[in-house]
């Protein structure tokens, strides 16, 4: 049956192509919209992962936006608990931890020979750069031994470097001054889009011990967890450890993925809307198939008559036209899918669009569904043609 349908299509290539085209475009637009929607979601997820999707933050105060800490680096608002090196050592014992980064944070005034600029001072360890996925445009970041040796080295955020020097990358190798000390710039980071990060000067946390940070305390501790699945466990253990030393209201343990799941929810809705829009073009494609199938039935009235004369039942004729409609729309769907895959391959070069198995299955199911739905009316009409009139039809 399917073989007959396909060999019939080979005999009328242009008509087949044009009929299938409607479905092809419909499927193409649905798959592309889903792919782009997924791409947008992936893109945002990547952005979050740059910040560390598996990031657990220990902040002073009782939580996000409350107490002493705001979600981002709330400059100068450091109140409540301050953490110390002993806390870092205890937290490091939690299993499945990849990074543990202490964060000293304040605002400062940075000077070169020519310029003077306000910025943020961040004291961290060497793991900070990996945890934040920081990328250098020039130079290098400091090492563990430089942290231990309290080296007077600094890594500059892009905006700060750009303000201080003619070109951001010119900063590498230069000497800058802040908090009454001279520091050598060893690296300049890429622009991240985060204002605080981009206007920060980052130095080893141990270097702050002394004049800058006599108490040897930190504003926050950031932890990078091996995998997303371990996040709840790590959160729980961190709370247990800190509760031994601090009151419940003095600190909070939050995770980035709480935010991520909200974003995911939003994008599921956006995706649904995109699919609904794309489905309209699929519907139009389906009506195109029905239209052509009706024309085909008229055009093939005599053929139906001949087939009936040699012994085809009404059912046989119905089946023949149905199979043709379904094969046609599946064919169109498949071509649309292939075209969409090619387009997504190209788009992927600059945007993380992707085709999900779900999209493939749903579009193929929908296109064969369209074939059945829009094929059944013309097919019934063909089957119900009185054989005698059909055979006399010219």
């Amino acid at each position, binding site marked *: 049956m399917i073989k*007959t349908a396909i060999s*019939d299509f080979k*005999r*009328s290539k242009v008509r087949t192509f044009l009929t299938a085209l409607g479905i092809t475009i419909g499927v193409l637009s649905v798959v592309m919209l889903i792919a782009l929607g997924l791409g947008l979601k992936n893109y945002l997820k990547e952005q979050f992962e740059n910040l560390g999707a598996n990031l657990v933050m220990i902040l002073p105060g009782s939580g996000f936006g409350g107490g002493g800490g705001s979600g981002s680096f709330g400059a100068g608002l450091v109140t409540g608990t301050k953490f110390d090196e002993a806390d870092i050592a205890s937290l490091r014992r939690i299993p499945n931890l990849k990074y543990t980064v202490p964060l000293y944070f304040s605002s400062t005034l940075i000077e070169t020979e020519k310029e003077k600029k306000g910025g943020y001072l961040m004291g961290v360890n060497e793991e900070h750069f990996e945890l934040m996925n920081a990328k250098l445009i020039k130079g290098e970041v400091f090492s563990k031994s430089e942290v231990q040796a309290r080296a007077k080295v600094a890594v500059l955020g892009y905006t700060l470097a750009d303000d201080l020097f003619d070109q951001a990358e010119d900063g590498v190798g230069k000497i800058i001054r802040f908090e009454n000390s001279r520091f050598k710039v060893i690296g300049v980071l890429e622009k991240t889009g985060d204002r605080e990060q981009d206007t920060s000067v980052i130095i080893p946390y141990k270097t702050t011990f002394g004049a800058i940070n006599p108490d040897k305390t930190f504003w926050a501790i950031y932890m990078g967890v091996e995998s997303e699945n371990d996040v709840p466990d790590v959160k729980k253990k961190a709370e247990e450890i800190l509760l031994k030393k601090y009151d419940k209201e003095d600190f909070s343990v939050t995770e980035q993925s709480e935010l991520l799941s909200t974003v995911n929810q939003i994008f599921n809705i956006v995706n649904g809307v995109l699919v609904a829009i794309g489905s309209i073009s699929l519907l139009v494609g389906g009506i195109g198939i029905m239209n052509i199938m009706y024309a085909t039935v008229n055009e093939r009235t*005599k*053929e139906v*008559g*001949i*087939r*009936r*004369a*040699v*012994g*085809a*039942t*009404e*059912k*046989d004729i119905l089946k023949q036209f149905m199979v043709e409609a379904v094969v046609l729309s599946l064919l169109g769907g498949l071509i649309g899918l292939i075209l969409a895959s090619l387009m997504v391959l190209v788009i992927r070069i600059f945007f993380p669009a992707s085709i999900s198995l779900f999209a493939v299955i749903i579009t193929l199911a929908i296109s064969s569904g369209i074939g059945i739905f829009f094929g059944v009316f013309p097919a019934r009409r063909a089957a119900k043609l009185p*054989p*005698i009139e059909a*055979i006399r039809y010219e």
Partner: protein
Amino acid sequence: MIKLQDVCKSYFLGDEEVKAVCHISLEIKNKEYVSILGSSGCGKSTLMYLIGLLERPTAGKISLEGQDVSSLSDEELSKFRNHHVGFVFQSFNLLARYSVIENILLPTKYAKENLDFNPVERAEEFLKKFGIYERRNFFPNKISGGQQQRVAIARALIMNPKVILADEPTGNLDTKTGNEILDLLENLNKEFGVTIILVTHEKDVARRTKRQIYMRDGQMVDKY
């Protein structure tokens, strides 16, 4: 044996009832070679289609091989046509998008049971017998009218039917080719013992058959 008892067939044109054939009673025995003769519009084709089970009578009874077929379902009628009846038409009615051999094999595609013969071998046998074997992969528009009618006859014969119904089979052919087709039909009647019912308006054609049935205004008459 084909038996018609008081068979009528009428159509509705708007509200008006048009009687195509009426009160036809006749018997055609197996292996007969009969013609139905009449001028155009006399209802002879309708009669043929009634015998060929493409039409149902509005009144009367038709029986084939002793079985009443007036009340069979579409499926049963189709099966009957497939196995017992072969049609040959004036305008050949081959499927243009199918090759000669595919056209001949068409009825075998609608056989619901396993066939007791090899369809391709049997089709090739006919092609050779009718002298069109070299044309087996041609499309109908690439062969002559006489050849097309031979293909149509091969298609009618492929299922080994008891009866062949030929509606003006020579109507679209010149006299010489027409005679060749009539020779062929006569031969089939002799050689295979297949009943042939020939519908025509030409006395010369009808004269070649052993029995003539005359029709006028939807009725059987004694003389043309």
